[in-house]
């Protein structure tokens, strides 16, 4: 069944979108990531204009994160105070990111920026996760699992403006969470992702938050940042396609629930190594696009206005 998207102005198969939403939903349920980093490139691939894909994906992430955060609220694994601090940074970052996005769009470099961001961040995160989970598997085979070493956090403790975060059991400066939030906010506006795949490692390794509150807090923060991004794109670029978003999120929410069930039956290390492989595969594909000579070296764009 073909469906005409009113904002993207292309006609696509509705079942294809439901399927994509479902597939990415399963992965996001399995791995506890938003899936934006997979969905946005897939949308480029099926011919949705990049600007529409980025803006609409932000809207879809609102839905999947909201669905996820409810479960964490019930389990009381959301650090609202930390979430709010991250959020202040995140909103500022999203606004900055959109300015950057629109500036580069006028230069014709927005595709390059988006792709470079993907290659760099997916490469780093995927690589680190891959090495880390390989080591974890090797260790658990040798010794049957030892407690991981605590990381040094000296320089973060030396910063001013300290604040107490009860749920996380932390007493740290507000500067690192603000910076992390800002950074993820910029990425959210540029890449059309929630940024969970960067936020979660940053919270664990940089801020030293306990793992059990990390996902809930990250989701809480992501809802507002992606919601804000959606509004910014909707009012400045008119690129949020609500029909596209609805189709994706129907598939997405159903898939996420299935994925959670699958995820619960697999070992954490296996899951992480699979996710790392997936992230690296997406990264490799995008890197090849940049490195190899494209089939068509010309591209069409509109001029400034809409």
């Amino acid at each position, binding site marked *: 069944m073909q469906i005409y998207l*009113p904002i993207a102005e292309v*006609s696509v198969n509705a079942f294809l979108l439901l399927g994509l939403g479902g597939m990415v939903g399963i992965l996001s349920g399995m791995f506890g990531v938003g899936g934006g980093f997979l969905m946005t490139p897939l949308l480029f691939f099926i011919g949705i204009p990049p600007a529409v894909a980025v803006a609409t994906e932000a809207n879809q992430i609102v839905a*999947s994160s909201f669905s996820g955060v409810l479960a964490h609220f019930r389990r009381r694994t959301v650090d609202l105070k930390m979430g709010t601090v991250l959020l202040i940074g995140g909103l500022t970052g999203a606004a900055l990111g959109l300015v950057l996005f629109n500036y580069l769009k006028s230069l014709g*470099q927005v595709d390059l920026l988006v792709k470079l961001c993907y290659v760099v961040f997916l490469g780093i995160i995927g690589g680190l996760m891959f090495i880390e989970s390989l080591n974890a598997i090797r260790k658990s085979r040798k010794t049957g699992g030892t407690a991981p070493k605590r990381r040094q956090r000296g320089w973060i403790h030396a910063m001013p403006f300290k604040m107490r975060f009860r749920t996380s059991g932390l007493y740290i400066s507000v500067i690192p969470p603000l910076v992390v939030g800002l950074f993820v906010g910029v990425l959210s506006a540029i890449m059309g992702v929630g940024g969970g795949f960067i936020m979660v490692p940053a919270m664990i390794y940089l801020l030293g938050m306990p793992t059990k509150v990390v996902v809930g807090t990250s989701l809480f923060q992501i809802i507002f940042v992606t919601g804000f991004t959606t509004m910014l794109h909707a009012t400045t670029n*008119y690129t949020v396609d*609500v029909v596209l978003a609805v189709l994706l999120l129907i598939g997405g929410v159903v898939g996420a629930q299935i994925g959670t069930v699958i995820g619960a039956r697999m070992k954490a290390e296996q899951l992480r190594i699979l996710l790392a492989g997936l992230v690296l595969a997406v990264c490799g594909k995008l890197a090849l696009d940049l490195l190899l000579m494209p089939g068509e070296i010309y*591209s*069409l*764009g*509109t001029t400034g206005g809409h």
Partner: protein
Amino acid sequence: MRVLSLVLLAATLFAPKAVKATEEQVVLGLSRDRVAITANFDGSDILIFGAIKRESPIPSGDPLQVIVAVSGPSAPVLVRRKEKKFGIWVNTDSVLVDAAPSFYAVATSSPFTEVITDTEDLRHKISINRAIRSVGADMNIQNAQEFAEAVVRIRAREGLYSIRENTVAVDEQTLFRTEIDMPANLTEGDYAARIYLTRGGKVISTYQTTIDVQKVGLERFLFNLSRQQPIVYGLLSLAIAIAAGWGASAAFRALRGN
């Protein structure tokens, strides 16, 4: 005397042709003059048919040929070219093509070069390359012409530009019909349908009408809302997302029975 005979000769030579040009006229029919883009729009076929009205018998000589050109609204297009820099492919040069139609289809009753001469094509801007206007190319950019060609190539690949030779059926030099299929990725606007009658490569009569392509229903509503009330539209998108997220969570909790 010589002058007079020349004038006479000229009159006998050219006068009938001049009369002919106004004598044959198009009476046109369209299977539809409105294309409604609905939610499940997946392209549209438009049957364009008509008859030639003439007061005198069919002129002898070159047979009548028909060209049908349908073009979407024109808009400037910024064409960018990639170049390898620092090992990766980056957009570098760009050329503004002043006006390129969003859709362009030409149907002819015989091969294009037989139907119309190059000069007539230039005058009436019928072939795709002539319909695109590009003047503002930067002098520093090499091969600026390639940018306009890229527009044609890319849009042809998307099914937006096409030339369909031998697809206009002409009966008894009087009736003609053709079918233009419009792809699903149409943009809105007034589409111009131009019909040219030619004999021996010369245009003898033209006719123009418009086909109105518009989003309707939900598509119209959402598009207007997004442009006129972007804040309301954005909030609506968010509300849908929140409701869906909450609904999914509630539904699956109920399913698991707790």
